[in-house]
């Protein structure tokens, strides 16, 4: 729907060759959404000897209009006059009724002293529709925002950082594992504890308590070193397990455990020297186990046992 043809209203001087009635404007459509395009047509009928142009179209900053395209052309009319036509495409902003932008028609005549100017203020207007509710104070997008393309170049430093972090973590893990292995080493732990018990004997620890600790240390050592439930086994079961695994130190170990059993269960009272000797033997056995985990014994030796 066109906004309709209108005629410019301002009065012209008496000797003017250009009359406001010669100027017509039309706009299409008469209502549109903000941001849409309005076709604004200015038509001027004039003498063929005159040259016509349109200037100072009130669009741009501070106005609800922005020129996005324009073209103009002239043609001769059958009545001996000519017609100038300027077709302008305007982007419209804001909301509500907006008067069509004014402009100045400039007419040049060869006989005149200078160009003649006619300022036109159209009475027509267009209605600009807003897509947001006027009662809502916050801005809401008309359509979902278009996501920006992912900056893939950013991945390079991220990946490099991750790789560096992973590598650092791996080395830390290796370090922690090595440290833990060092601290949890059953041989080391058993030897340290056996030494500690020997020191405590000198400070007044009862030999019977020393034997009980000796038994516990040896069982824990066996459990950690050879991965079987020595703590839940009686001495005979441990002996069977060690024999099945062909552990080379089994006879001496079982002898010590038997001695400890006598102290624990038969109320035997060993003297301090006996306890010290057993602790030293235990230390040597543990150290021996560290050097050679298992040895294949001759079948003859197995039989002799």
């Amino acid at each position, binding site marked *: 729907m066109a906004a309709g043809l209108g005629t410019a209203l301002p009065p012209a001087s008496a000797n003017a060759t250009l009359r406001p009635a010669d100027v017509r404007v039309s706009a299409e459509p008469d209502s549109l959404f903000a941001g849409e395009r309005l076709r604004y047509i200015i038509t001027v009928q004039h003498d063929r000897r005159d040259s016509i142009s349109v200037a100072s179209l009130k669009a741009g900053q501070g106005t609800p209009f922005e020129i996005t395209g324009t073209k103009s052309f002239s043609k001769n009319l059958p009545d001996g006059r000519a017609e100038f036509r300027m077709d302008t495409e305007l982007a419209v902003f804001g909301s509500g009724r907006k008067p069509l932008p004014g402009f100045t028609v400039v007419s040049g005549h060869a006989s005149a002293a200078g160009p003649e100017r006619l300022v036109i203020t159209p009475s027509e207007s267009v209605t600009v529709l807003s897509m947001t509710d006027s009662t809502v104070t916050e801005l809401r997008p008309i359509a979902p925002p278009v996501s920006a393309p992912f900056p893939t170049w950013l991945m390079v430093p991220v990946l490099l950082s991750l790789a560096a972090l992973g590598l650092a973590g791996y080395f830390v893990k290796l370090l922690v594992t090595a440290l833990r292995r060092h601290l949890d080493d059953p041989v080391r732990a058993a030897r340290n504890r056996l030494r500690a018990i020997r020191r405590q004997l000198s400070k007044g620890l009862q030999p019977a308590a020393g034997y009980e600790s000796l038994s516990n240390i040896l069982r824990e050592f066996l459990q950690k070193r050879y991965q079987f439930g020595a703590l*839940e*086994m*009686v001495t005979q079961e441990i002996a069977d397990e060690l024999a099945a695994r062909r552990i080379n130190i089994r006879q001496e170990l079982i002898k010590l455990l038997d001695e400890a*059993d006598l102290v*624990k*269960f*038969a*109320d035997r009272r060993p003297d301090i020297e006996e306890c010290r000797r057993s602790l030293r033997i235990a230390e040597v056995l543990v150290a021996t186990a560290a050097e050679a985990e298992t040895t294949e014994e001759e079948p003859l030796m197995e039989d002799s046992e």
Partner: protein
Amino acid sequence: MKQETDLELLGRQIAEESAFIDRAREVLATTIIGQGAVIDKVIIALLANGHLLLEGVPGLAKTLIVRTFASAMNLSFHRIQFTPDMLPADLIGTMIYNPKTMEFHPRMGPVFANVILADEINRSPAKVQSALLEAMQEKQVTIGDVTYPLGEPFMVLATQNPVEHEGTYMLPEAQLDRFMMKVIVEYPTFEEELEVMQRASAVQAPIEVQAVVQPEEVFRSRSLVDRIYVDQRVQRYIVDLVTATRSPERYGLGSLSTMIEYGASPRASIFLLLASKAHAFLQRRAYATPEDVKSIVYEVLRHRVRPSYEAEAENMKAEDFIRNILEHVQVP
């Protein structure tokens, strides 16, 4: 030092007094092939003054073991076949009217013997089972108005057939608890069965077993068993094992808490301690060790731990729980 001397002395006495065990084993071996573990458990029960529940399919020489054992020990023996129509009077005896004297006289039942074989105890109704179990507990029987003490030693060996349950009266848990141990009688090995077959095929009557042990020897041995030293550590281990059947989660066995309907009673701890001492006696030791406990723990606990419905659905038995507990409870 005093304790050490006492234990050494006790050790020597045990070595002397336990000689009857070898004699009994030797005589029993002439009649019974294999079943050494069962015989050991019977001796343990005799020494610890307990009763045994034997479970095994028919034909595994359960009756023969008990009969021969009683003969070798020079103990009186009665075999009672429990049937559904049995009455308590058939077991403990009753008052019989004598028309000549016009008086009632007590007629003692078969329970008056040193060794009783209650064959297929689960075939008789609850009142007969109760009468026997009461006699086992009280060691005396009341007939009419008079209470008669039972003989000493008095030991009941009851048998149950694990495969036939139709028409039987399963022993309630409270009564099962009265038995010190439940021993599973296993099939013999190939060689043992071969020997059994060769011996049994003889037409001649079997050799009469001579009594090689006197009851006095058993009494003296019992007094020695009482004196066997059990350290606090071993006692605590026993209570740990029994408690673990009731509160497995306390021993890192949370998964068992839903599998065990109920665990062993404190009577199990008492019997486990007694049986451990008797086992130590069999090993000629004056002190008990965790090894003794482990040797008889299955027999003492298996009938006292009841698997839950979930456990039965997963085909788990009391033995599985006991094994699990032994693997988690630390030995002192």
